[in-house]
Structure formats: structure tokens, C-alpha cells
């Protein structure tokens, strides 16, 4: 948490007891140490401007400037994931910044060909949601075999088939070491250091310059281990609180997030990894638990299996919760040609809320029917919301029709409005003389059928 101007002042030459001989010397360009402290707190000055700050104070000030939850990066051949750096407990307070990385577990006991196929399927998985490509973030290769040779082969098989970031899962240092031998050039996440193995794991993490998961089943246990590891020089850490079920995970993860953000408790200021398949044997419940962990407060979620019908809703939930509440996802207002429209193609109007626009655009595109889609600037609101807020009224629609110059592109004078705003018909006829206003169906799904019969 950021220090106040007064907190900072207490560390400067004028604020320490007894004061430094140079207190209030003005060399920093400010009249007093206190004035300088205020500017520092407002991030309008740099600490380096004062030559007389003690090393101890410098260390305290830079520690306080560090984010309360450390940013952790995994990378592989161009694809990377970053998690951490979150600043709030609830998305409405600001926003969530780094979407939870969603990974898929790969047991090393699968035949190499299956590992390669699974890795490729996960890497290739891509689903379009309101113009965003939603993807999975990596693989967690687990040494179920406990055998170094077999684990190394599994890692090699996955590496051969994809360029996804990896998590290497084993508590046996020799097994991790064998896996790391196959990940040269990328930054995997090592999982996990425990009370029993942390010294050996620390050495491996340092040598590989890789982040390390810390596993313990209590807050105290986690904090103790992270302190030992940072003292040993491993700073990129991830927490596995080993609370697996719905209730335990929710409580533990909430406590960790609060300690990091509200107490600025450094030993627990790291992202969290969760394994929903360890919390329930039922695949349907696993998906719900993964959803809970995306919402409350995991940085990494490892799924027990790869099933598109589970992955798609999870990635949509993630996209929704990590949207900035201050900025609804929008598209540019304007004219969008769909399926190479000609002069006789229908003209449709909608709003610039992404979900609305893509509901209509996707429906039209897959129907193969040509159309001119006019997108009104409705401040990123859905049809009815914008209508209720006065941002999608007859005047706005008329302005859109005129402003986009669609009249020069078509030979007819007909425009279709969404069925939900049928009430605008009369007013719109007045605003757009010479145009015939047609009321379309309420839902976009019914548009193709409507255009085939009623256009």
C-alpha cells in the first residue's frame, strides 16, 4: 500500500530523529523535506533528487512502492502469461487487471502421442467472444509417475507439440530437475516447494531463473516458506494454500488477498495457484469450482481435463469479470458491410455495445445474407439500456443513418430497427423523411428468417 506524505517525511533527513544535518537544505528543489515528501507521495518527484536519504530509508521506500501482489510472468516462445499486480478485492472498486491464467493438467503417465495431441488441442483452442479471441494459457505437466525419466519425456513431448507456457508439477527435486532440462529457453513455473524440499527447489528455481510455487496448508506455513525462499534469493513466488474444496478455497484465497492488499503483508503478496480437480471428483462441480477461483482470487487455475464445453463458459466468465467496469466493451460506431453487400442489400441499425453488435453481426455473417449494419454511438449500451437512457432514440438513429452516408450506397430507402424499440417507429418516420422504417424481430437469431421473408 502506498505511503502517505507524512510516512515518507519520517524517513527523510528532516523527519528522522535526530534530524540529519542537511535537513531542509533545498537541494532537491523543494523548500523543505516535508514539501519534497508530499511531492513524492503524489509521484511528482523522484527520491534520487535527495542525496542525503539513508540506505535504510531507501529500502523502505522502494519496498513500499512495490505492488502488493507481485507480478509473475511465465513465457514460452512468444506466448506468455502475466498474473498478479491486482489492487482491489471487488471489481467495482477499480478493476481486475490480469485475467486468471487457465491451464490444463497433463499427467506424465499418458503415452507421448496422447500428450502431444492434448498439448496441441489446448494450444490451438480459440473461441471468439464479442470480437475477442479467448484462449487457454498453458499446460501443467504433473509427474504422476514420480519418475524423472518419464517426466522428462512428457515435458519433451509437450514442448514438441506446442509453444504454451508450462507448469512443472512434482515435489521431488530430481524429477523437476529432469523436467527443467527439457525447458531450456522458456520460463516455466516450478510446482512446488514445501517445508520438506524448499532448499533443493530454491536452487533449481535460481538456476533456471524460474518462478516457484510455495505449498503449505496454513497462512503461517506459507509466510514462513516465502520468507525462507526470498532470503535464499528466490523472489518470484506463487502461493498454493492447498485448501482444495469450495469453502476452504474461498476462505483461504480471500484471506490471502486481504492480507496482501489491506495489510500490505509482504510475505503473502504473491499470486495464487488453484487446482479445482483436487477439490471435487465431479467434473461438473470442478467447472463451478474453477469459476469460483477465477472470481475469488486465483492467478492460475489448473483444470483437470480439457473439455471445450467446460472451457468456453469459464473463459467467458473470466472475460466478463476482468472487464473494466468503467468502460463497457464497445465497437466503433459507423457502417459495417456484411457479406459484401450491394445497393439492394438491407440496412440494419444497432448500438455500439460489443455484445449487441456481435450478436447481430455474427448472426448475419453466418447466415450468408448481405447487409449494411449501421452502428449508432449509444455510449456502449445495449439496445434497451440505451433506449431507456435516451442514447438510442429516433434522433440518434436518424443521425446515424445520415452520418454514415448509407444513402449513397443503397438504391432503396428502407431501414430495419430492432424489435425491442418498435415504439420509435412513428418518431423515426418524422426524423427520416423519405425512408421506410421497418421493425425487425426482437432477437438477432430471428433476423435471417425475417430478412428472407419480410425484407
Amino acid at each position, binding site marked *: 500500500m502506498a505511503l502517505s506524505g507524512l510516512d515518507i517525511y519520517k524517513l527523510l533527513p528532516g523527519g528522522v530523529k535526530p534530524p540529519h544535518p542537511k535537513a531542509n537544505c533545498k537541494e532537491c528543489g523543494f523548500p523543505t523535506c516535508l514539501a519534497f515528501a508530499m511531492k513524492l507521495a503524489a509521484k511528482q518527484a523522484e527520491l534520487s533528487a535527495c542525496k542525503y536519504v539513508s540506505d535504510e530509508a531507501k529500502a523502505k521506500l522502494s519496498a513500499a512502492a512495490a505492488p502488493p501482489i507481485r507480478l509473475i510472468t511465465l513465457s514460452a516462445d512468444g506466448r506468455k502469461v502475466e498474473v498478479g499486480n491486482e489492487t482491489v478485492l*471487488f*471489481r*467495482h472498486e477499480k478493476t481486475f487487471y490480469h485475467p486468471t491464467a487457465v491451464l490444463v493438467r497433463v499427467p506424465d503417465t499418458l503415452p507421448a502421442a496422447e500428450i502431444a495431441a492434448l498439448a496441441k488441442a489446448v494450444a490451438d*483452442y*480459440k*473461441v*471468439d*467472444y464479442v470480437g475477442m479471441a479467448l484462449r487457454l494459457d498453458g499446460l501443467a505437466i504433473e509427474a504422476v509417475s514420480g519418475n524423472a525419466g518419464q517426466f522428462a519425456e512428457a515435458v519433451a513431448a509437450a514442448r514438441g507439440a506446442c509453444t504454451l507456457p508450462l507448469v512443472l508439477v512434482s515435489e521431488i527435486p530430481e524429477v523437476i530437475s529432469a523436467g527443467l532440462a527439457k525447458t531450456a529457453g522458456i520460463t516455466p513455473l516450478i510446482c512446488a516447494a514445501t517445508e520438506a524440499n524448499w532448499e533443493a527447489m530454491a536452487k533449481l528455481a535460481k538456476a533456471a531463473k524460474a518462478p516457484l510455487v510455495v505449498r503449505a496448508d496454513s*497462512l*503461517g*506455513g506459507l*509466510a*514462513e516458506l516465502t*520468507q525462507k525462499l526470498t532470503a535464499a534469493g528466490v523472489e518470484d513466488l506463487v502461493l498454493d494454500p492447498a485448501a482444495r*474444496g*469450495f*469453502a476452504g478455497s*474461498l*476462505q483461504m484465497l*480471500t*484471506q490471502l488477498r*486481504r*492480507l496482501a492488499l*489491506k*495489510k500490505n*503483508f509482504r*510475505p*503473502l503478496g504473491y499470486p495464487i495457484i488453484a487446482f479445482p480437480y483436487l477439490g*471435487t471428483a*465431479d467434473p*461438473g*462441480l470442478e*467447472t*463451478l*469450482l474453477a*469459476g*469460483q477461483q477465477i*472470481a*475469488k482470487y486465483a492467478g492460475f487455475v489448473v483444470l483437470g481435463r480439457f*473439455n*471445450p*464445453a*467446460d472451457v*468456453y*463458459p*469459464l473463459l*467467458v*466468465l473470466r*472475460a*466478463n*469479470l476482468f*472487464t473494466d*467496469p468503467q468502460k463497457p466493451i464497445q465497437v466503433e460506431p459507423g457502417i459495417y458491410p456484411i457479406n459484401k453487400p450491394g445497393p439492394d442489400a438491407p440496412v440494419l441499425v444497432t448500438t455500439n455495445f460489443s*455484445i449487441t453488435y456481435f*450478436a447481430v453481426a455474427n448472426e448475419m455473417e*453466418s447466415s450468408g445474407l448481405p447487409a449494411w449494419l449501421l452502428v449508432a454511438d449509444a455510449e456502449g449500451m*445495449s439496445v434497451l*439500456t440505451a433506449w*431507456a437512457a435516451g442514447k438510442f432514440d429516433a434522433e440518434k438513429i436518424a443521425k446515424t443513418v445520415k452520418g454514415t452516408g448509407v444513402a449513397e450506397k443503397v438504391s432503396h430507402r428502407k431501414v430495419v430497427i430492432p424489435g425491442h424499440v418498435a415504439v420509435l417507429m412513428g418518431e423515426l418516420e418524422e426524423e427520416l423523411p423519405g425512408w421506410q422504417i421497418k421493425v425487425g424481430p426482437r432477437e438477432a*437469431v430471428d433476423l435471417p428468417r425475417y430478412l428472407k421473408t419480410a425484407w
Partner: protein
Amino acid sequence: MPVNVEIPVEKWSGSVRLVKLGATAAEGGTRSRSVTIGGETSLPFLGFEGKVPNPPCVAVEVRATNPAEDWPPPLTKAWGAVLGDLAAWTKAAEAAGADLIVLQLTQTDNAGERMNGPKARAALRTVLQATGLPIIVLGAGQAELDNEMLVAVAEEGAGERLVLGPCEEKNYRTIVAAALANGHLVTAKTPMDVNLSKQLTVLVHDMGMPLDRIITDPTTGGLGYGIEYGYSVMERLRLAALQGDNMTQQPMLVTPGEEAWRTKEARAGEGVPAAWGDWEERAINWEAMTAAALIESGAEIVVMRHPVAVARVKQMIAELMKA
């Protein structure tokens, strides 16, 4: 050297209001048991900082009109023939694990004719006889018709502590009056806004409705279709309730079933990307995930549709209550 970490507990001054649905014979109704919701003194399921005395409830939707034409196959298949038989459907819903039954009224009946008071009355009678669970009756979304039907329903179920709704800013007086006269509760529905929700609670309360007979419906969107707005409004309402803001302390009811089953992801089986996965699994996930996210943001009642999604969400609630 073990490190001692103090568990960060929030001290809340407020709590969610207790609301009791349904009346037993001893209480002047015919329900085999009543159901109490609310009473939480912490954010959802944080047992380390407060009490969660009553689990959230799953209410299952039934209708007097067969929805087979409107509902997609993954949903109609799950219920089968009972969709055309209100009594059988109600029994099946109870067997599927419903804590409460929602009688969702419609604008037309099976013959395509306009519904009306007497028909709604008969539908309620059927449901009352088919189940001993507390009942929520929701209107069809057309003010004039809803007033006619809900007044009839209120009279028919006098003394049962039904929940009638939705009361909306533009249409609440008739429903509230009917509920008051016959010993029922109401839901107050507003479009995803903390202040509007408070205002409507005040308006309904000003008519003489005790606060322990008002449930708030903050409105939600389905997963992928605006759930984040509902989710955040519910989190804000719940935080305000715990901070002691009196008019935000009503238990919350939301309708993930309706929202999820209107999405393309639940409705479309053909011509969709392979990345969407198996239709039935995806559709059930869509409803269950929508409901789960809303429960974790504070819902006390989720109104649902698919029996598999219902069972899954019930299991999740049981797991969360282990706290």
C-alpha cells in the same frame, strides 16, 4: 520458526434481514415446512468472520403452459412429458431438489388464449396440491395482466406466505396491496442499480409492507450477456447491507435460469463453432455457472430450470456451507 499470521476479519455492523417463506398448518397455511433465508453477518460463505445461518435456496421454475416450443431440446428433454402437466412437473421439480417452487405465469395458455385471473388461480391451486414446498409466483411481464393474475393468486393462496412479483417501479401498488391483504411476501425488481433497488424497497415498505416480507431482485444478465453488471451490483448491495445500510438488507432473488436459457450458447446446437463443445453439457454449464457466480456474489434465491444444473448448484451450496 512458524510465522504467526493474523486472519484478516472484517467487522460488520449490519446483517441481511431474515425472511420466512411459506406457512405451515400451524402458521395458517398448508405448506409442509417453511423456509427461512437471510441472516448472514458476513460476505458469502466467509465462516471465519460471521454467520451464514441459512443456505441459499434453489427455486425451480414450473409453468401452467407447456414451454416446449420456446425452450431448446437440452431443457425440454430433461423434463420430458411433465412439461405439459403442471402437477407432475411440480412433483418432478421437488424430486430434482428444489427448495422452493416458482410458478412462472405466462401471457397465454396452452390453447394460445389470453391467461386471466381464474386460470392463474387454478394453476396455483394445482401447485399447492402437488407440493408442500413454499411457492413464489412471478408475473408474465405485462402489467395489466399481471395485476389481474397476481390478485387472483393472492386470494387463492391466502395465508400461505407466497412470494408475489415482480413489483417494479412502474407497477407495484396492486401487487403489494394484494400481498398485504392476504399475508404474502413480494419481490421488488429494479434494473441493476443500487439506488433504484433501495428506492423501490422504500416505496414498497411505505405502503405498509414489513421489511421482513420484501425480497429484492436486483436483475442480472446471463453469462456472457452482462452478468458482470449484476454480479457487481449484488456485491455492492451486500457490502452496503453489512455496513448497516438498512434498505439494502433484503435477501436477493435472481433468475439465472431465464437469463442463461435465452443465450445463444444454450439455445443453438447447430451452426456453432466446435470450440463451444457439446451442446447439452455447454447449456447446463451455462445455467449452472451463471447461478454459481450469482450465489457467490450474494444471492439468497436463484431461480433455475434444468434439473442437472439444479442438482449441481445444490451440491455446490452444500460444499460452501461446510465453512
